[in-house]
């Protein structure tokens, strides 16, 4: 299956699922309950005040009722059953609008008792909720809406199947239960969906037809039948066989009629007989009943003439149905589970509940995937409005429906016989509980509301068996506690549901307390950043965040879900960053690990001083360390676990520095990345691997998002050329990468020369990031030339203000590159960029050859050259000392004052770089004084390619800003600098 097809259908599935999901949840939950409508009716019933007339006396009952109430002859029903939900033997309504049904029964003494009762059925109410998902108004509105919803649902099914097909065999039953909650929910959603697919297809199609049949008939009538559908419908009416005839005629006894029907089909079990126009020649009896051998529309019926005893119509009689009615009856039976007996009904019930789970989990997955996206990007972790609204809606609607239905069932039992208008009361209870739940969910937020509403659901559902208990224990209450198996079944199922709601409430509560705090499901007080929280003692913080069972497998799973390092806001725009390491050997008694050093770039690395080690939490396998930093910091780090043999030398002692350096060198070989860090590891300057730590407020590196995902996008090979530069002047050969982003025919493309090219081509490939920013119109289409620095010695020689290198660059490389990818020879459109020593080289090139390199990008430049690092340190501590060696750069800048050309410089330094920062300050001031266009910013970080990679793109965007020419040559204005970053926490220093 092509991936674009799958992606397309993922969008279809998401949208159809979200729009239809909540309606379908209610429909499926109520629908599952209606499968057992009869047991429910029996549970809620109270015994008739008069006992049911015996069937043997049915004829007498009919005769006497018709004598007493002739108007009943038009249409009355004789109920044949004996179960407790049947409240009278004979019932009729005066007219269609007659709300209260009339009943007739013979008392024990033989008197005819007539009564009128408002007994409308709870089962019908739940069925209405099922058909309309609770949408108020006449059923028509609700059903039409549900018809549309069902159509959307059918599309969701097909799209879901298309998505899952490619990995069907491999992934389907791989239910990955584990710390990755989203994966687990997704697997569960897929398994349930695929296994119950046939059921869902049937339900979706039948539901569309049920809800929209009127509209479909209208369309057919217009298009196909030319207005002639009504006569055909009339002709198909099963009652046409009995001609209208007003002449009076006696009716055969009930048993005779039943015998006729039984003769026609012995397995048919009649349930009720509906008489029309009784007492006339044109009378008809519609005998309804069940026949488990056939698939019927709920109940089947035969039309019999009570005068002659003939069976007039069997179109809907199980076993003798016509071709067309039989086929259609099958569809009905498939929806109503009116086949196969109780086993099929139980299966449908379970499938209905599973279906409700599908819709609920589908919405949750959508919400979770939105959250993950925010997290992965290291973007600001403030819940999107759409996510919190959707989660509140899902929780409110779904759990609200559950609570409302349970409460309605309970209320129906308590109010039965006590109030006049039970319809009104039922509606009142249902809608008030439902609306209140939805409002509560929006008010409290999904996290808290899910816990509270689940508890309410547990209570309401437990009230069902408790009501039965109350009915038994306190007969004075007047509630009849039915002891039939059916009714007890209702109690039992309700109790199990109540217990599962309790369990779900506890799981939700745990998630609220211990789950990731940036999640929609976290209790809101946890996700408020900097809400005046005092920096709690570190152990307390870990316990509060992940639970009391520190070091257990479940605890580590919670940590894994959140991801390391663990960040907590501590107010004042600062954060506490905690690092955790799990000792694979266990606790202190078993492990040989003596120390776990942490190498954080420019924070605890070899430049800074004594190596920092994590501390073990006593009695566990947890090692932890934390520090406080600005909330917009980012940095690379790695762990160095050591045992007794590899401890660092003591700081005192003779050859302190040398030994320390040696130790660091060997230790770094043993460095490990952080397995609990969800981010992709990257490679550092010396080829070792690091884990990235991006604090939530660090400026967002959008261009690097794809590189940070596990599926990296390779550079477009058609635009990337690797050539070999054999330099006569420098007498060496090196690789050069030339990457073209943009139109080929444009000869005016800007040129960017990137030093330390091997790092930006191999270790941290910059190509996809350049493509991204060019596509986002932050960078103009340009040609990028990446130059290999070969080895350490060559690099130190060539990049440290080396005239020869600069000449070779200008005279040999640039023409070579231009032949491969034509670009303009305009210094204002030529950038030279570098970091560290490369930064020094870049600034040197700009000052020395401004006619070639008009733009300079220098990050963390080693501007103290030619002094060595230690001398630079002493200078930084006593800033006013001049002299003591030539200050090459300062001199060059001074000289440039007299030159005509001005260069544009973008300088960057990390706040943690002790020497480089003040040096960069100094150089920036000098450049500004000399009249150059110098832009300088300080980022929160260290000598770290993780920081440089963002600054590189930002700097290029700034330097090439005016060159984002539109096709007619008009130049764009300089970009809004604040658009380059998301937070205001970085310093921008302009002169």
């Amino acid at each position, binding site marked *: 299956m092509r991936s674009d*097809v799958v992606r397309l259908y993922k969008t279809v599935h998401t949208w159809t699922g979200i729009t239809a999901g909540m309606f379908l949840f209610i429909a499926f939950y109520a629908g599952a309950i209606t499968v057992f409508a009869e047991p429910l009716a029996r549970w809620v019933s109270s015994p008739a005040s008069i006992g049911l007339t015996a069937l043997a006396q049915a004829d007498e009952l009919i005769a006497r009722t018709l004598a007493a109430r002739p108007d009943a002859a038009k249409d009355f029903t004789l109920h044949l059953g004996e179960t407790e939900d049947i409240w009278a033997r004979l019932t009729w309504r005066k007219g269609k609008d007659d709300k209260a049904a009339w009943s007739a029964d013979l008392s024990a003494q033989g008197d005819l008792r007539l009564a009128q009762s408002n007994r409308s059925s709870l089962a019908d109410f739940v069925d209405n909720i099922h058909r309309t998902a609770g949408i108020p108004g006449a059923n028509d509105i609700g059903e039409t809406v549900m018809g549309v919803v069902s159509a959307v649902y059918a599309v969701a099914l097909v799209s879901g199947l298309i998505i899952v097909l490619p990995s069907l065999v491999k992934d389907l039953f791989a239910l990955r239960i584990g710390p990755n909650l989203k994966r687990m929910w997704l697997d569960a959603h897929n398994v349930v969906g695929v296994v119950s697919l046939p059921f869902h297809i049937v339900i979706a199609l039948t539901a569309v037809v049920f809800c929209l049949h009127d509209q479909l008939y209208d369309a*057919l009538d217009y*298009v196909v039948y030319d207005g002639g*559908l009504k006569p*055909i419908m009339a002709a198909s009416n099963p009652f046409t066989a009995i001609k209208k005839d007003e002449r009076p005629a006696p009716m055969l006894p009930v048993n005779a009629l039943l015998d006729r029907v039984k003769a026609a089909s012995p397995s048919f079990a009649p349930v009720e007989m509906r008489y029309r126009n009784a007492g006339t020649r044109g009378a008809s009896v519609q005998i309804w009943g069940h026949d488990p051998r056939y698939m019927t529309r709920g109940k089947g019926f035969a039309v019999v003439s009570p005068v002659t005893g003939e069976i007039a119509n069997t179109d809907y009689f199980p076993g003798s149905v016509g071709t067309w009615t039989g086929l259609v009856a099958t569809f009905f039976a498939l929806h109503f589970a009116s086949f196969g007996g109780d086993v099929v009904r139980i299966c449908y019930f379970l499938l209905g509940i599973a279906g409700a789970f599908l819709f609920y989990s589908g919405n949750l997955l959508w919400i979770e995937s939105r959250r993950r996206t925010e997290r992965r990007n290291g973007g600001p972790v403030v819940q999107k409005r759409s996510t919190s609204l959707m989660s509140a809606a899902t929780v409110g609607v779904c759990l609200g429906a559950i609570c409302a239905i349970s409460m309605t069932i309970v209320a129906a039992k308590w109010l039965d016989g006590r109030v006049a208008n039970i319809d009104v009361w039922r509606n009142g209870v249902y809608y008030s509980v439902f609306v209140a739940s939805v409002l509560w969910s929006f008010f409290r937020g999904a996290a808290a509301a899910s816990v509270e509403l689940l508890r309410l659901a547990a209570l309401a559902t437990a009230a069902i068996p408790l009501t039965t208990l109350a009915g038994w224990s306190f007969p004075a209450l007047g509630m009849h506690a039915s002891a039939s198996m059916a009714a007890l079944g209702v109690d039992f199922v309700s109790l199990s549901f109540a217990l599962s709601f309790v369990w779900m409430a506890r799981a939700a509560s745990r998630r609220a307390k211990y789950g990731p705090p940036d999640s929609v499901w976290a209790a809101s007080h946890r996700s408020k950043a900097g809400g005046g929280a005092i920096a709690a003692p570190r152990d307390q913080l870990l316990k509060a965040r992940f639970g009391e069972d520190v070091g257990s497998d479940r605890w580590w799973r919670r940590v894994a879900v959140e991801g390391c390092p663990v960040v907590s806001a501590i107010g004042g725009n600062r954060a506490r960053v905690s690092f955790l390491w799990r000792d694979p050997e266990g606790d202190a008694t078993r492990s040989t690990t003596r120390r776990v050093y942490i190498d954080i770039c420019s924070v605890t690395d070899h430049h800074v001083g004594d190596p920092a080690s994590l501390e073990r939490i006593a009695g566990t396998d947890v090692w932890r360390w934390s520090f406080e930093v600005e909330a917009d910091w980012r940095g690379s780090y790695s762990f160095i676990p050591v045992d007794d043999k590899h401890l660092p030398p003591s700081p005192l002692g003779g050859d302190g520095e040398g030994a320390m350096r040696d130790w660091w060198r060997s230790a770094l070989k043993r460095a490990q990345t952080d397995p609990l860090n969800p981010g992709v590891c990257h490679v550092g300057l010396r080829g070792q691997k690091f884990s990235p730590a991006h604090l939530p407020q660090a400026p967002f590196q959008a261009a690097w998002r794809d590189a940070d995902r596990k599926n990296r996008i390779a550079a477009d090979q058609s635009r990337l050329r690797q050539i070999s530069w054999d330099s006569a002047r420098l007498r060496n050969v090196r690789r050069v990468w030339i990457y073209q982003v943009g139109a080929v025919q444009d000869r005016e493309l800007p040129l960017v020369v990137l030093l330390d090219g091997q790092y930006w081509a191999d270790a941290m490939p910059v190509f996809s990031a350049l493509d991204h920013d060019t596509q986002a119109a932050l960078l103009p289409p340009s040609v990028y030339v990446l130059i290999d620095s070969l080895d350490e010695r060559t690099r130190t020689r060539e990049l440290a203000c080396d005239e020869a290198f600069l000449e070779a660059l200008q005279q040999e490389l640039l023409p070579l590159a231009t032949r491969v990818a034509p670009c303009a020879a305009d210094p204002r459109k030529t950038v030279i960029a570098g970091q560290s020593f490369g930064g020094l080289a870049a600034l040197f090139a700009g000052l020395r050859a401004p006619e070639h390199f008009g733009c300079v990008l220098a990050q963390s430049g080693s501007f103290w050259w030619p002094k060595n690092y230690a001398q630079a340190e002493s200078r930084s501590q006593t800033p006013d000392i001049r002299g003591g060696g030539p200050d090459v750069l300062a001199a060059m800048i001074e000289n440039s004052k007299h030159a005509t050309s001005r260069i544009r410089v973008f300088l960057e330094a990390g706040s943690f770089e002790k020497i480089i920062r003040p040096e960069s300050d100094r150089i920036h001031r000098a450049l500004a004084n000399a009249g150059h266009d110098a832009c300088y910013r300080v980022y929160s970080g260290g000598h770290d390619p993780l920081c440089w990679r963002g600054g590189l793109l930002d700097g290029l965007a700034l330097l090439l800003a005016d060159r984002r020419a539109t096709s007619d040559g008009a130049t764009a204005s300089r970009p809004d600098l604040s658009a380059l970053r998301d937070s205001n926490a970085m310093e921008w220093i302009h002169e």
Partner: protein
Amino acid sequence: MSQIRRDWISKTSAGVILGFTLAVALAGLFAWLAPGGLAAPNKFQLVMWLIAPIWLTALSLCFLFYSGMRAWLWLGGANLIAYAGLFACRHFFR
């Protein structure tokens, strides 16, 4: 091989509108051509039932068309053929 275009609005409208009319037409063809003809008692129920699966299949699969334009053209064409058949039935079987 170029990617399928998204064209949400045009594809969805093609599926909803043209898919529906096609379904009605095909159901009508069934009404005419299947045994019993148009006026067979109770046949109309099945004819009505046929509309939904045809329509929803067309709607679900209409996103596979390369573009919205193609969806309209193909579904429109299918509609034309189906309605031509329907008119023919009406003409010949009256």
